[in-house]
């Protein structure tokens, strides 16, 4: 989120031609046309909130990935790769692939067979209303705030890259999202996310292709980076033996146990923003294949994110710098590496497509937040706590109104952030408080029949509370970092990793302890929700090439090979 600051006080990076503007306007027209076209297919609750549960594995898988592929992330991680080298790839490989495969093979059957409409909805079925209320209120609040922050960041990026008015950017993009999600519901959001995914690749793929040509291939790139920075910038694991040995200040245990085992698994398996896309799949096999397809594409996202950052390090004539220094000197910050590379290679037309890719990334993230908020608000808060017995039509109308409401709150948040920029860091931290403990609650609920409703609720509360407590402890006393992150040399990212790990373990410990002294649900009520009490349909009737396990092994093997190649 510090990306936003990076663009303050810098000059416009690129100038658009007429053909660039035509490409951008065409994109807006097309996404609105899709929304209007799909309006007739969003009349029932199942249609509006779950896209009719008829998505193929490919659509659900690409949408699953696209909802996460926001431009802020693309630009931020390109900047991180300029700053930290290929280490940033960990957030795309070990920080995503194992979690996605775990979701597909282990967790998806329970989500799908339970026919839940949301992750808080699963908690209601498994642990009861109190756990759902806690998770849904936290999720709805954070989601809509995150949407506003993304909106603000997009407007700021467009202002700095293109010189566009910040108010116009906020209102045009948010109203466009509001229109197409209000009209077509989740189906419209998913359709547009798939379109946006294709545009992101079409707009960004040229940078690494041309960059590698200019650098003289991968070996030429490594040689230039060894001169401009250090040869260690192109190794993923060999420098992670000690906190001091790599620019991220992180140890391999933080990456493996904090990032991969907790943060990433928590995000990809319990954040409803992404899980909602898979729940819309047409059958269980499609629901299991969707995250595997998403994982296959996720493995190659570093090609359009990390590689441009490395190419910038090797080829750009100027030295990029931290945000504060860039603001003070009028130079370019790390986070500007992607637009700088875009401007380096892309002439009229290509530049418009590249900018469209960035806008598409922002809008897919915003639409993902808004559609997830709408479902959780309508089903898990409004219907559960405010108006229980109303018609399906009433809830669809509430869904449409809450979409507009969510966008308006997001716009309000965007303007709030303009005046109080530190809010962004706090909201990000708040969001992270919740995901790691939620993962422990959900996974224990799915795999352990003895986990009781009281155990689920108190574990979630204790995990979230302890995460907030550790964060506040380090804020008040920075020397506490040696305890939270196990080393005084640890940096922000390492702190996040370890805080997530501890809060997840505390949640699991409290859940187990409370469950052992309280009454569990009868086994009959756990059918379809828990391992050992659920009949999972056999896949023996399909050929090997149609089985999720087969493709998970293929993706997992490629993942291992890539890590060895770039060790």
């Amino acid at each position, binding site marked *: 989120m510090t990306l936003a600051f990076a663009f303050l006080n810098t000059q416009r990076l690129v100038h658009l*031609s007429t*053909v660039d503007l*035509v*490409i951008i306007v*065409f*994109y807006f027209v*097309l996404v609105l046309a*899709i929304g209007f*076209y*799909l309006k*007739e*297919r969003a009349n029932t609750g199942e249609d509006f909130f779950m896209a*009719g549960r*008829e*998505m*193929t594995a*490919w*659509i659900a898988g690409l949408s699953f990935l696209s909802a996460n592929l926001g431009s802020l992330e693309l630009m931020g991680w390109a900047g991180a790769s300029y700053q930290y080298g290929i280490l940033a790839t960990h957030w795309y490989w070990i920080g995503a692939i194992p979690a996605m495969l775990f979701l597909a093979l282990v967790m998806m059957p329970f989500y799908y067979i339970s026919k839940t409409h949301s992750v808080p909805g699963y908690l209601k079925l498994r642990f009861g209303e109190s756990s759902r209320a806690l998770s849904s209120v936290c999720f709805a609040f954070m989601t809509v705030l995150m949407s506003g922050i993304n909106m603000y960041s997009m407007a700021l990026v467009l202002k700095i890259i293109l010189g566009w008015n910040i108010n116009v950017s906020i209102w045009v993009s948010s109203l466009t999202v509001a229109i197409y999600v209000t009209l077509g519901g989740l*189906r419209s959001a998913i*359709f547009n996310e*798939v*379109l946006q995914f*294709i*545009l992101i690749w*079409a707009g960004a793929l*040229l940078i690494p292709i*041309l960059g590698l*040509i*200019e650098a003289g291939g991968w070996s030429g790139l490594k040689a230039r980076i060894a001169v401009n920075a250090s040869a260690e910038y192109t190794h993923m694991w060999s420098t992670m033996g000690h906190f001091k040995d790599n620019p991220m200040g992180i140890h391999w245990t933080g990456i493996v146990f904090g990032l991969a085992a907790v943060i990433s698994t928590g995000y990809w398996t319990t954040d409803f923003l992404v899980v909602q896309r898979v729940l819309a799949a047409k059958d269980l096999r499609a629901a299991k294949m969707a995250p595997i397809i998403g994982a296959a594409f996720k493995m190659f996202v570093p090609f359009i994110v990390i590689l441009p950052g490395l190419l910038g390090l090797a080829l750009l004539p100027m030295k990029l710098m931290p945000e504060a220094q860039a603001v003070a000197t009028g130079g370019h910050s790390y986070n500007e590496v992607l637009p700088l590379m875009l*401007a*380096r*290679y*892309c*002439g*009229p*037309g*290509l530049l*418009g*497509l590249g900018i*469209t890719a960035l806008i598409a990334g922002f809008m897919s993230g915003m639409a993902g937040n808004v559609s997830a908020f709408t479902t959780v608000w309508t089903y898990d808060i409004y219907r559960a706590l405010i108006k229980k017995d109303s018609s399906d039509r009433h809830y669809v109308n509430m869904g449409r109104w809450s979409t507009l409401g969510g966008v308006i709150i997001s716009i309000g948040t965007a303007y709030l952030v303009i005046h109080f920029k530190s809010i962004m860091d706090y909201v990000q931290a708040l969001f992270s408080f919740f995901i790691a403990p939620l993962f422990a609650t959900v996974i224990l609920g799915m795999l352990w029949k003895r986990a009781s409703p009281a155990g689920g609720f108190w574990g979630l509360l204790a995990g979230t509370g302890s995460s907030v407590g550790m964060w506040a402890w380090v804020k008040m006393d920075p020397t506490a970092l040696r305890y939270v992150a196990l080393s005084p040399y640890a940096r922000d990212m390492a702190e996040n990793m370890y805080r997530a790990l501890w809060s997840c373990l505390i949640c699991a410990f409290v859940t187990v302890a409370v469950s052992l002294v309280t009454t569990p649900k009868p086994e009959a009520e756990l059918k379809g929700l828990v391992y050992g009490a659920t009949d999972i349909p056999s896949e023996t009737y399909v050929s090997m090439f149609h089985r999720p396990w087969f493709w998970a092994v293929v993706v997992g093997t490629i993942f291992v090979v890539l890590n060895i190649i770039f060790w």
Partner: protein
Amino acid sequence: MKSGGSISIWFFIGISLLVNGLLIFGSGIYELFHIPKNPVVLFNLHASIWWGAILALLGAGYCIYFTPGKGRG
């Protein structure tokens, strides 16, 4: 996947790629005869022309294959 009657999402994607590809291709051809004062790096490779052509061909293929009413998607 079909929706809203008979139009596949891939048809919409085809239209997007086709239109963008044609615009980029046309822009590349224009630049071939009107060389800009400050050309981009590797201008000699004329990326706009071949990338635009690839996108347009891909888009045309999708549009034809997923034309509404063909029952594909």
